[in-house]
Every structure is written in C-alpha cells, then in structure tokens.
C-alpha cells in the first residue's frame, strides 16, 4: 500500500481521503461514484452513531438509570440510563466498521493508481462493465466469499470480539445492565481464575484437568473402537455387512438431543436399565451411573462411544476402500501376512489420513457441551467446586456461570482460556501434519 502511495500522483494520493477521486478524474465515473457513495455512507455513520459508539466503548456508560417523580401519575417514572452491555456491543461493531473503512480506503487508492497507470501507458481505463465482469472470473473469490464473510463477521466474529472484551470488564451479577453500569477492570478476572486460592481458582484447575482427560480419552476410545468395528465388519467372516453398518449408524442418525436425554433417564437409579437388571436378577441395588463421580465419568465416556464410534467406523470404512490396491498386492508378493499388512500399510495410511480429523475431534471434545450437559448436566456436583460438578467441562461450567449466576466476565475469561488450550494443541499438531503442509499433493 505504501508503495502504491509513493508511486501515485497527487490525485491518486488524494483518493485515500476522497474515495473514488482518481477514478472520477480519469474517466471511470461509475466506479468512482460508487467509492464516493460508500465514503458518504461511512461519514454519515460516524456522525450519527460512530463517535458516540467509540466514546461508549471507552467509558462503558456514565449515566446510571434513575427515577423521577411524575406528579400527575403519582409514581416515580424510569429515566433510562446507559446500558454498558449495548455500549460494549456497538462499540465493538464500530471498531469493525473502522477496520472495513481502512480496507475500502486501500481499495480506493489502488483503484486510483490502476487508472493512473493505464492513462500513463496511453490506454483507456477499463469500463465499469468490464470491471464488473472480473467479478465472475479473476475476482470470482470476492463474489463467492462476500456473503459468507458478512455472515461470519456478523454472527461469529462480532459476538466473539464482544465476548473477549467482556473478560476485561466486571460484568458480573452485581453489575447487571440496564440497572447498573459495568466498567473495564483490566486483567483482574484472569488473576481471580488462575489464583488457586479463590473459590473460582480452586475449581478451575481440577475442572481443567478433567476436561483434558476427557478430551483425550473420548477422542482415542472413539477412534480405536470405530477402527476395530470397521476392520471387523470389513473382514471376510462377516456377512450382510451393510445391515450391521446401518444398525450401528442409527446412533449417528438419531438426533443427540433426543438420544442423550433418553439415555440419561434410562440410567437413573430408578431408570429402565436398573429396572431391567433387577428384573433379570443381575443386581439387587441400583447401579449409581450418575451418582458416583467415577461411575459417571466412565458412563459418559461409554455413551460417547455409542455416539462417536460408528462415525469413525463409517469414515474408516470409506478410507479402507480408497487404499490403493497395488500397495496390498506388492505386500502380498513380498509374503507379508495379514497382521504385517495391517501394521505396515493399513494403520499408517488410516492414521495419516485421519490425523486432522482426530485433532478436530479433540477440540470438539474440549468443547463438547451437548454430551455432558444433556447426560449429567455436570453432576454429581460436589462442594469442593464452585457451582460445578465432577463431570463438568470448562464449557459447561461457563454456561452455568452465565445462565445460573450471570457472572459473564468470569465465564468469558474461562472461554478465552479454553481457546488458548485448543489453539495450542492444534498449532502444535496440525501444522506438522502433511495434509496441511502438502496441500496440493493429490491434485
């Protein structure tokens, strides 16, 4: 951008301030007017909302809501105050709009420079129609990505930035908008959570370690069991393969919301599993599937296997069909037996192909809200943790902190810490996989 700025003449440089100037001057009236129009919209936004939003983001509100006596009605009437939560959200939006403004400014400069260049070369600058036709060819990515990116910015990036910023405020149950204002507190929340002596800190570390144990065990068990299932059903000893695969795939097809709630009920002390086992005379006392921490943790992992293993099975089955037949034939000629073939060819191939999938699964399990929340809701709870239970993951805990006690700032802080963990794991592993480094290997 700097280079363009240096090379451009004054009109081109001025296009950084007055969008589209270069284009208008050099005969690209339509394009220039579009740029100018966009700039006017920006200016309008900033005068009308933007400046206020930035100020709001900085102060998070100064005027608390109050009450004024209405003599005629005989009651005190509400006078609206600032709403810190909305100020934070719209302030964040304003930051994003400023970022987009910078991008448009850059585009304006570049477009002006292009026009300048063609004039210098003695060519006529491209017409608007021609320009637009680029959007179906060399610039087709802009056309195709425009709507998805707007969607992501609005429904993912903006909420996320907002959430991150909340972690640096004191938006907790004592500072609830619209009645109360909250304010910036810097890194205080992080100290509270990472401090092992605060009530939150005492719970954070044990919950974190269970989250990691859970994510590792859940990912590996699903992978191994799915792999075994796929190999087994694929073996020549099994008939009607499709039927078995379909039966096992039912647990993937039935919505989790339904199946998990049902399983939760079935495994209660008075649930149908215990009733059935009692009727069959296998047990006398109900098994404490959810009451005992160890039982509950193992049960969750097994139920997760019920949901997750068939998924791996389907993928592995597909991969097995894709393994080049020549590899097997060559091995057979070398006299390798089934086990050697599996160890030397099949397994490495599957692991190679599935590594990215496993990493995604791992991160998915760190954030596996559904399974935990619908099965145990974090229980059995324990007085050793603050508002949490023995099977709570960090995500379910932060959900409880927001919905239960409205302590948004602590929940956001935990959310950021969860992110740091996931990011670290994926950075460490993902960038080493060949799939990432060797993107075009198969094309």
């Amino acid at each position, binding site marked *: 951008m700097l280079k363009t700025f240096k090379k451009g003449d004054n009109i081109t440089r001025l296009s950084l301030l007055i969008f589209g100037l270069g284009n208008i001057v050099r005969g690209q009236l339509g394009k220039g007017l579009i740029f100018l129009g966009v700039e006017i919209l920006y200016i309008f936004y900033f005068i009308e909302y933007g400046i206020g939003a930035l100020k709001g983001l900085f102060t998070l509100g100064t005027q608390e809501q109050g009450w004024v006596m209405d003599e005629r009605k005989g009651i005190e009437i509400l006078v609206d105050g600032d709403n810190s*939560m*909305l100020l934070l*959200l719209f302030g964040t939006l304003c930051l994003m709009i400023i970022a987009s403004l910078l991008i448009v400014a850059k585009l304006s400069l570049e477009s002006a420079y292009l026009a300048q260049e063609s004039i210098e070369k003695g060519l006529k600058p491209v017409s608007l129609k021609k320009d637009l036709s680029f959007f*179906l*060819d060399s610039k*087709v*990515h802009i056309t*195709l990505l425009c*709507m*998805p990116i707007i*969607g*992501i910015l*609005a*429904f993912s*990036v903006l*909420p*996320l930035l907002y959430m991150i910023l909340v972690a640096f405020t004191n938006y907790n149950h004592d500072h609830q908008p619209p009645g109360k204002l909250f304010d910036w507190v810097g890194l205080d929340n992080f100290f509270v959570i990472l401090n092992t002596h605060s009530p939150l800190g005492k719970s954070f570390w044990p919950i974190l370690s269970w989250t990691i144990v859970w994510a590792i065990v859940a990912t590996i068990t699903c992978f191994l069991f799915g792999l075994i299932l796929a190999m087994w059903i694929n073996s020549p*000893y*099994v*008939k009607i393969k499709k039927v078995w695969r*379909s*039966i*096992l*795939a*039912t647990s993937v*097809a*039935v919505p*989790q*919301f*339904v*199946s998990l709630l*049902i*399983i939760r009920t*079935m495994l209660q002390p*008075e649930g*149908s599993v215990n*009733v059935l086992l009692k009727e069959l005379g296998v047990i006398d006392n109900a098994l404490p599937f959810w009451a005992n921490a160890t039982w509950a943790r193992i049960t969750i992992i097994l139920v997760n296997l*019920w949901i997750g293993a068939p998924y791996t099975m*389907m*993928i592995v*089955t*597909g*991969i097995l069909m*894709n393994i080049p037949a020549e590899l097997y034939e060559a091995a057979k000629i070398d006299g390798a037996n089934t086990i050697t073939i599996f160890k030397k060819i099949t397994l490495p191939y599957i692991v190679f192909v599935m*590594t*990215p*999938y496993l990493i*995604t699964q791992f*991160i998915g399990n760190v954030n596996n*809200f559904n399974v935990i929340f619908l099965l145990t809701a974090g229980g059995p709870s324990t007085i050793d943790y603050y508002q949490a239970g023995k099977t709570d993951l960090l*995500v379910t805990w932060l959900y409880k902190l*927001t919905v239960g006690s409205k302590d*948004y700032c602590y929940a956001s802080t935990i959310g950021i810490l*969860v992110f740091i963990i*996931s990011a670290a794991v*994926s950075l460490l592993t*993902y960038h080493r996989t060949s799939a990432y480094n060797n*993107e075009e290997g*198969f*094309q």
Partner: protein
Amino acid sequence: MRTKARIKTILSHICLVLLSVVWLFPIFWVVLASFRKERGSYTSYFFPKAYTVENYRRLLFETDQFHFAKWFGNTFTVAVFSCLISTIFVLSVSFCMSRLRFKMRKPYMNIAMILGMFPGFMSMIAVYYILKGIGITQSLLALILVYSGASGAGFFVAKGFFDTIPKSMEEAASIEGATKMQIFTKIILPLSKPIAVTTILTSFMGPWVDYIFASVIMGDNYDKYTVAIGLAKMLEREFISEYYTQFAAGCVLVSIPISILFMALQKYYVEGITSGASKG
C-alpha cells in the same frame, strides 16, 4: 482351516448381534415409552402394562398446552432454508479455498479455524442483540440466520473433498475460455454431489436438535417455537410426569425423518466425509 473360519464367522455374528442389541436398546426403549399407556417418566417394570397410540394423537392434535404439529412445521421450514443457505455458503467458500489462489486465502483459513475453537455459548446474548439490531428477533428468519449465517467458517471437510478433484479438467476448460465462475458452476458443482449431501445433512439436522440458542431467540413467542424447545419444555417440572410419554412420541417423530434421510443418503455422506477427512 475351514472349521476355523466357520467358528470365526459364527463368533463374529454373535458379537455383532450383541452389539446391535446394545446399540438399539435406547431406541427400542423410547419407542416402547412412546406407546406406553401409563404416564410418568419412570415405571418400576420394564415393559409397559398397556399400549396405546393416544400419546401420538394427543401430541399431534391437542394444541392447548403444546402445539407440536405447528412447531414441527416451524422446524422444518428453518431446517430447509438454513440448509439451503449453508450449502451455498460452504460450497462457494470451499471452492475458493481449494481452487483459487488469492492473498486473503491463508488468513481466511486460519481465522476460520480459530473461530471454531471458541465456545459459542458466550456469544449467545450478543447474537441476540445483533438480531434485535436488525429487528428480527423472535422470528423464524432469525433462527435461519443463526444456524446458517456463520456456516462459511465450516468448510474444511468440503475443501478437502474439492482438493481431490483433479486439476486437469478445469485447466482444459480454462483453455477453452471458461471463466472461473463457469468452472465452479459447470464443472466443480456437478462433481460435488457427495459433499453437498454431507453439508445438507449436517445443516439440516442442526435446527432439530438445538434448543439453547433457539429458546434464547424465541423467548416467549410460543407460535414460533421449534420442536427442540417444545420437547425440552415437556421435561420441565410441571409437565414431565404428565407429558413424558408424549415427549417420547415426539422424540420418535423427530428421529424418523432425520434417520430416513440419513440412511438414504448415507452412501454419499460417507463418500463426502472420507474424501474430506482424508485431506482435512
């Protein structure tokens, strides 16, 4: 050798039968419960004492407390539109990421991956106020946008699939003067049936199973509820004993269309996932 193979075959099948029993057990139970005449979520016996279709009839035709049929329609509408939008978004994004080379490609991919690592629940309230800013809270449109709006970040599987399509075909088309857009619509799209099916399936299922986002957005607008909120409501304290068997019936009704769809499209689904997974 032959008897050994036969024993293996028999053993395998016995194990598979046992496994299938475990696998189908919860489904079997919920079907039983949905036909159970006695109310309540727990019974001190396994098989119902009497069977009835009353639960289904009341679920579908009684509207004084729960308007299940209407909610089913709502969910279906949301599911259809959000899966349409998601599919378009995902396919366009993955085409760009796989086939085109431009400056913002790697940053976009990295950002998309980072977005997936944040727990989404925290942003729920912000999403609500964004929708309110647009002025569409408590509407089906809001739900459609929530489920499909950010779908462009979940393109990794589809991109992996596109990566496996040989480049030679588009090179040939390119020489014949086809634009990139034409390559996308005329060459790549027709080849992407498996991955389109995968995307359609996953995004179609979303609205049926989410009730946390849906209930935040719908609030008190009873007419616009989805089945998931409705089913979750039936499990609340004041309803559960009266409505549990209807809840089971509702579960069966929700599972049927999704399972059928899934089973019918399973072939493509596996194809899409595996080629996608293989290239991540």
